[in-house]
């Protein structure tokens, strides 16, 4: 029997880059094929070709042994290929039914949309594949995990046989990711075939039947998840030896650098999002704040860096009160901030790499004399940073938006860490990055800590928190429910704490008066 999908010699050239170089791929029925590769390796290009968003320069696509040409997503769906995008293509103010119907509306006699029929079919699908969802819910009210289910239902509703998942776990909590894996297994059991794109090694080993690794547009090898291990896959991806474990010595912390006392913060709707928390970060110490996203970590960072105002409480940097100071005052005092959303906050995408590298200091000497920018100095700095921080860019003049995610993050890291700082606030510094970049950024953060800098690290990735932190504070519903030494706590305990369960007591931590809604 012919494999359900075959790609032969797919080649795609973009100006200056060969995104796909004669890629062959075979997908069997009922198989989960993991497509592993660093950001920019060409995975997404390949999938966009398959989904009809790009046309290949060379090569052919065979579905069930028959050659097909895919000019658009509609063609792809007709050929039975569907894609669950990393950023959902859902309309928040529509119901699940309406979202599923969109684009293939069944019409009753006359011109009325037949919601009932669609809802019925959604119920059938959700029963068949164990995809629990209420067709009448509005998408905006659904948690991210369920929204993803709606995406999957959309594809099944259109009779997709081949499902492509593009980095599906990037937006999910660990629990939600586990649920997704169960769904994927269920789907393949019933004969659907899946291509799973990721750069997270653990997930690949857990879920896939077969692993294909892509590097720089080429297939560099296949692996069997039963025999492969993390290290070997990482090396295939990156093309060199990778150190997955962060090496760091135990260090005795110094003086308190950042001290937060009894802090209370409300969001723009006046909901309490930080509920009387206190914490200290010492020189030469990494304090990790663990917690599922939306439990007040974002606001904590914003208040400390001056982007958001506190209701009450005190924040002190080296003993000096900086509560509700402007971001510039706080920055100039000797702090650095790696923001959670690098594209929205950390960079001005159309600006050049050189300009972004001085985004927080361009108005100071030597980058400006009076009001006149000194582009030679800015350029000098850029060239040094590009070298020191290994930023892969064609030149300091290209706009930063054209760089890969990892290199964009390196621009921020370079800018923030190269200044003389005593406090680093790093919020999800490796979000969405590949193994090579993660390794590099971890090394840099630890290096800064070793130099005596205090580090406040926020991350929903448990592995990252455990590996980097000296001490860990767990946030749940706006409160710090536990602070522990990193080497004295197990992953399981932390997982429970993140879910609000305090192990000794075996109960859910006290709720705040106002429920803090997770915001997406």
């Amino acid at each position: 029997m012919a494999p359900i999908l075959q790609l032969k010699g797919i080649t795609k050239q973009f100006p200056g880059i060969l995104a796909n170089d004669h890629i062959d791929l075979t997908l069997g029925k009922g198989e989960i094929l993991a497509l592993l590769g660093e950001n920019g390796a060409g995975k997404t290009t390949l999938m966009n070709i398959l989904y009809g968003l790009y046309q290949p320069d060379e090569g052919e696509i065979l579905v069930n042994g028959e050659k097909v040409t895919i000019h658009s997503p509609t063609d792809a769906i007709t050929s039975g290929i569907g894609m669950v995008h990393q950023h959902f293509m859902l309309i928040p103010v529509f119901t699940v039914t309406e979202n599923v119907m969109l684009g293939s509306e069944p019409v009753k006699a006359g011109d009325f949309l037949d919601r009932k029929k669609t809802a019925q079919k959604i119920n059938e699908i959700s029963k068949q594949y164990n995809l629990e969802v209420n067709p009448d819910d509005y998408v905006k009210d659904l948690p991210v995990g369920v929204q993803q289910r709606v995406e999957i239902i959309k594809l099944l509703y259109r009779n997709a046989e081949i499902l492509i998942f593009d980095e599906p776990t990037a937006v999910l909590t660990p629990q939600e990711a586990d649920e997704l894996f169960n769904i994927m297994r269920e789907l393949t059991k019933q004969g659907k075939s899946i291509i799973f794109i990721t750069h997270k090694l653990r997930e690949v080993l857990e879920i896939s039947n077969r692993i294909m690794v892509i590097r720089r547009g080429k297939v560099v090898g296949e692996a069997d998840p039963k025999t492969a291990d993390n290290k070997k896959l990482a090396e295939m991806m990156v093309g060199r030896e990778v150190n997955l474990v962060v090496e760091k010595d135990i260090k005795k912390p110094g003086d308190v650098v950042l001290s937060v006392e009894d802090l209370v913060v409300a969001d723009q709707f006046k909901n309490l999002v930080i509920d009387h928390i206190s914490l200290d970060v010492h020189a030469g110490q990494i304090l990790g704040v663990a917690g599922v996203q939306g439990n007040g970590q974002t606001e904590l960072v914003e208040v400390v860096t001056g982007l958001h105002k506190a209701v009450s409480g005190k924040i002190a940097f080296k003993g000096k009160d900086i509560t509700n100071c402007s971001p510039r005052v706080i920055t100039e005092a000797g702090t650095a901030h790696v923001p959670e959303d690098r594209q929205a906050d950390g960079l001005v995408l159309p600006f050049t790499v050189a300009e972004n590298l001085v985004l927080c200091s361009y108005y100071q000497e030597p980058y400006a004399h009076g009001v006149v920018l000194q582009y030679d100095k800015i350029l000098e700095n850029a060239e040094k940073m590009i070298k020191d921080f290994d930023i892969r860019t064609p030149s300091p003049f290209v706009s930063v938006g054209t760089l890969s995610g990892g290199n964009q993050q390196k621009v921020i890291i370079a800018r923030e860490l190269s200044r003389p700082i005593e406090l680093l606030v790093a919020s999800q510094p490796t979000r969405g990055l590949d193994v090579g970049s993660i390794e590099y950024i971890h090394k840099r953060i630890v290096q800064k800590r070793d130099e005596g800098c205090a580090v406040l690290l926020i991350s929903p990735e448990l592995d990252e928190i455990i590996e980097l932190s000296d001490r860990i504070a767990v946030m749940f519903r706006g409160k710090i429910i536990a602070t522990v030494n990193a080497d004295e706590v197990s992953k399981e305990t932390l997982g429970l704490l993140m879910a609000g369960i305090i192990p000794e007591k075996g109960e859910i931590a006290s709720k705040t008066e106002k429920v803090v809604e997770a915001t997406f």
Partner: protein
Amino acid sequence: MKNNKNDKQDLGKVILNEITGEDPKSPKKKKSFWKKIEIPFLAIITGLLIGGILIGATSQSVYAGFAVSIWSGFAALGKEIGTAYFSLFTGSLGNPVTIIQALQSGNATDIRFALNPLLESLVKSTPYIFAGLACALAFRAGLFNIGVEGQLFIGAAAATYVGYAIKGLPSYIHMPLAILAGAAAGALWAIVPGLLKAWTGGHEVINCIMMNYIAYRLTTYLLTGPMTRPGGGGMPLSPMIEKSAYIPQFFQSPIRFHLGFFIALAFAVLVWWILFKTTWGLNLRTVGTNPRAAKYAGLNITKTIIVGMAMSGALAGLAGANEILAVNHSMAIGLSSGYGFDSIALALLGNSHPFGVVLAALLFGVLKNGATRMMVVSSIPIDIVTIIQALILIFIAAPAIIRAIFHLRSSKEDTAIVTLSSWGGGK
């Protein structure tokens, strides 16, 4: 020395690179010259072609020709369109034959007269340059200054007042003072919507439109009241400004070519320098491109918005002051036929780059000036040129149409021109 020469030769290329935002040092494959000007060029050609069809369709002689035979119809069509565009061309750039004859004769007066169409086009371009710069600068700061028209009126009124009310100053003080008054008044007028946006989040588009209405009525009141011409019988007309406040014209009447054009060019360079070479400019552009990152980088967004509006308003005020001090020498209603609104299109056409604005303004000036000649020679209403202008703009703003007509391959890079972040409704 040799280096210097090279620089000069490449100036055109450098400017082109500046406007298209291409970095000459970037190793990326460079677009060919043709690629870069393809869309604007074809847009102009297409606009003229459709304009030609309109000219033909509204011409009696063409219908008469077709009534006789197809060939005489086409002949009449060709003659109509040919005459129209020939007069548009000679009216705006000069008649090559006359120019050559004048040059050969060596008579300075003849040469000036032969070149006058071109010089007059520059005169017509000047207010467009100022107003276009005003819009472009605001765009770069993420602001949609639709209030340029009102700021222009207020700037003109202030320049007029300083121009006639102060007497006995030497020209080198009076003229700059009047120009400055125009700029300051325009800036003050623009600061109002700037403050409203910065403090209350009120959208500048709405507030600018309202400020326009106030400006129109206020100038009408001023011109019929406090600023009316003594002995003018209460007509909405100001006194003539003092000679010392004139922006000097270089030649004798009827050649109006004046220093204001070079002032406008100087301001284009100044705006370019501010936007791309100073911290102020970087502030403006950062706030305009990504206000969240600006906040993160510690910028004072409120202040930047106000400064941005003030600078934009000052340029708009200069447009008005220039018209009064260099051309009209007194103020009346009917000062502007919509420079403030044309300038929005013009700024977009110029990619919100000061040098692009200058080129776009020259195009507008040429078309506008040529239209007069076209009207004289073939009695084609001036409105046809407005239509041609509009068509060209539509084709440039929607390059997909041009690509579809000429079967060009689309390139992913030519997408949106300038991000107007403030349009998302965010502060």
